[in-house]
């Protein structure tokens, strides 16, 4: 399945670690889909299943995010630089409801609410890990 260009969503992305790794990430596991690796271009989506949605609850932040199952692919594009990475959904997350209203901005334009989490490989392809979060557009 190839990454597409149909607009799906927009918001904040953060990054997370998974799979075999070092430090605190060594206990992260392979995620809800059982395939997550920090060094792969992968993502966590807050509505991979009903059980996932019940944890992340993006609806509590006003985000009616569509269900996309493990293995779905998406293009994630930095709002300002245009840098894009194609990712495969490999985990459930982020915990959107815990940070309702949080905004990330660039060039004076902001994106609100955490709607996707990227692995370090994917996040670093469109931004710097030390920033922690980025404003993005998501396509499929």
């Amino acid at each position, binding site marked *: 399945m190839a990454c597409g260009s149909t607009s799906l969503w927009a918001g904040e992305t953060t990054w997370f670690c998974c799979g075999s790794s070092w430090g605190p990430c060594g206990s992260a596991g392979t995620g809800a889909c059982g395939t997550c690796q920090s060094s792969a271009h992968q993502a966590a989506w807050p509505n991979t299943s009903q059980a996932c949605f019940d944890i992340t609850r993006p609806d509590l932040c006003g985000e009616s995010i569509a269900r996309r199952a493990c293995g779905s692919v998406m293009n994630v594009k930095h709002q300002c630089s245009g840098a894009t*990475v194609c990712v495969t959904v490999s985990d459930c997350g982020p915990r959107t409801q815990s940070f309702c209203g949080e905004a990330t901005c660039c060039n004076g334009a902001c994106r609100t609410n955490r709607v996707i989490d990227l692995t370090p490989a994917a996040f670093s392809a469109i931004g*710097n890990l030390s920033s*922690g979060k980025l404003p993005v557009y998501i396509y499929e």
Partner: protein
Amino acid sequence: MTDRHDPARRGFDRRRFLTTAALGGATIVGASALGGLDADAAFAAPIPSLDPAIAKSAFAEGRITAIKGSVLEVAGSYGDRHLIQLTNATSIWKLRTTTADAIRTGDGLYARGVDMPDGTIAADAVWVNIVNLFCTVRGIAKDRLHLTHGSADHEVVGRIVPETTTASYLGGALTPDLSRVRIGQSAQVLGAWRPEDDTVDIARVTVGH
């Protein structure tokens, strides 16, 4: 359209600079004009340092097994091995923007760069020991936060580093004031893991609901 506004051109220039720096055996410096800013500066940067072409970049992850001159030997977490070439275009982050002198054998890292013909990766950015953990605050002391993270609630101690650790409350502006952190809150902790005692030096804690 100027070169500065042409992503393809910027990408080419970045790669040429990295390649030239690596092949020339350039001296190592820390921060660069090309990226790898510290957390606060990167967050506030009006224009991200990265260009679209970097999506084709190389990536490496693992722990440093040896440091030979400006080359880091890295054992990947899946048995793979990497040679990371630091150049004068490499930015280095270890809790803050720093220099190669701060890197130690045993450190973990994520590196982004360009594949070189000799099999090394000429690094554009190296993030040493960086972690970004979704946590729950379990305890608060003067110099540390007791946290749990992950589905199994693994315990981790987050060390508050004077003049470095900042907090953001519900996405608000960064502040050195951690007095509003409460037990039971969700928190995103960006910091640097310390291999010597398995704690984390906190760069930024973002407190949620």
